[in-house]
């Protein structure tokens, strides 16, 4: 049977980065859990509403121990969203998914017990400050410059920021940037700007012959592009859910 799609619009799929807390348990686990309890007692709700990833790369445990560790964490209201660095044999259905490709970020400030207040910590548990300050998203200031033509079949993927190509982007090549895309040459392939959810990203090119353009998940194929933009110097940006374009110069 053939399914008929009544709506021609495709689903919008986006990438997004979150900063997760990474816990790296150490052996023996009882001792480590004790230290975790100590931290929690100093700042109730430290783990509340925060995504937590469990790093078990340097931990010598088996599946049973991992399962009980997850249970222990669950009892402490630590919700594990993923497990990093685990062997495939460690996992079983129902466990948080395996994660990889994480990039390091600055360490979280663990609230230090104030020496003067620490004796009162037991009774003043509710008064302990709940860490509320938001982790500031790192502003994408990074950029890379590609000094050669990007050939068919090649991808330049740079989620951290802008991509500048001094040369052409061939048909069948793609540029994926977290920020804006600048092409000092002919853009014949694909350019995807703001790929990690940046609606203010733009695409600039000296000559537009692109197969596909996308900003923040909104895309346009060659067929949808205004024919008078072909072969022109163009910049493209996002207004609401539509890609706007204008000729440069």
């Amino acid at each position: 049977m053939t399914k008929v799609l009544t709506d021609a619009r495709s689903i919008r799929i986006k990438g997004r980065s979150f900063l997760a807390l990474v816990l790296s348990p150490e052996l023996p686990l009882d001792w480590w859990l004790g230290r975790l309890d100590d931290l929690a007692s100093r700042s109730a709700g430290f783990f509340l509403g925060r995504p937590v990833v469990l790093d078990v790369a340097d931990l010598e445990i088996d599946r049973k121990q991992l399962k009980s560790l997850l249970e222990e964490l669950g009892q402490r209201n630590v919700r594990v969203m993923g497990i990093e660095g685990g062997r495939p044999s460690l996992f079983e259905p129902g466990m948080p998914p395996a994660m990889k490709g994480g990039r390091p970020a600055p360490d979280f400030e663990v609230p230090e017990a104030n020496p003067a207040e620490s004796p009162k910590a037991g009774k003043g548990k509710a008064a302990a400050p709940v860490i509320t300050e938001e982790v500031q998203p790192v502003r994408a200031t990074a950029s890379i410059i590609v000094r050669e033509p990007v050939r068919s079949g090649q991808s330049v993927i740079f989620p951290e920021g802008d991509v500048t190509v001094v040369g052409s982007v061939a048909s069948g090549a793609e540029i994926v940037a977290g920020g804006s895309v600048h092409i000092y040459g002919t853009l014949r392939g694909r350019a995807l700007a703001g790929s990690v959810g940046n609606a203010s990203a733009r695409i600039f090119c000296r000559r537009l012959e692109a197969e596909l353009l996308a900003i923040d998940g909104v895309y346009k194929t060659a067929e949808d592009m205004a024919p008078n933009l072909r072969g022109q110097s163009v910049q493209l940006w996002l207004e609401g859910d539509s890609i706007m374009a204008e000729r440069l110069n």
Partner: protein
Amino acid sequence: MAKVVVVTSGKGGVGKTTSTAALGAALAQRNEKTVVVDFDVGLRNLDLVMGAERRVVYDLVNVIQGDAKLPQALIRDKRLDTLFLLPASQTRDKDSLTPEGVERVMAELRKHFDWIICDSPAGIERGATLAMRHADLAVIVTNPEVSSVRDSDRIIGLLDAKTERAERGERVEKHLLLTRYDAVRAERGDMLKVDDVLEILSIPLIGIVPESMDVLKASNLGAPVTLADSRSAPALAYLDAARRLAGETVPMTIPGEKRGFLGKIFGRRAA
């Protein structure tokens, strides 16, 4: 100093084998010891174009697997003392080529020859990547047509990534050989023009070979174009291309333009 040249294109049927034979013969005519190596295991054709199909005993795969010594597999051309062929096996497939085996054969060929011309199979798989692996120079054969140009572009990207030179941080010298060019049709817009292809691929041009019946005739005769009739238009184009490959500066002519005689022929045929 031996030079390994890979003749490649990505797309099939653009003239790799014809160009390998023609350039190989042209270089050998310069009295430089040349071997043409067929990497198209399973679909060999270079032996036919070279007119040596009835003299093949051992092949590249036999040498790689140690069943034969390299001198046993090399076939000397009957017309040129300096031209040799290392045929491919027709009964095997590309998996018979091993990276170590190819490396060994290439190292040995480098000791005995000035030019080693590798005829790459179409595609970007094992056969093609092994053919380009040890290249110092690449001749990218392209037809003035969009799919051929895009495939060539892909191959250029691979030459910058998957060759031994690229892995050492050096570059493979790349040259564009435009084949089956018809100036009249390019002018009419049926074909890409030379400048369009150069703009897209941005590598130096080594020659423009016109579309010609002489090429088909030479293949059926079992002679490289440059040996079959060295005065034909494609032969002249290949001879010039070989001189450029050897480092000479030869002014570029676009066949069918500024050549009254040829222009007439092409004009009539296209009409």
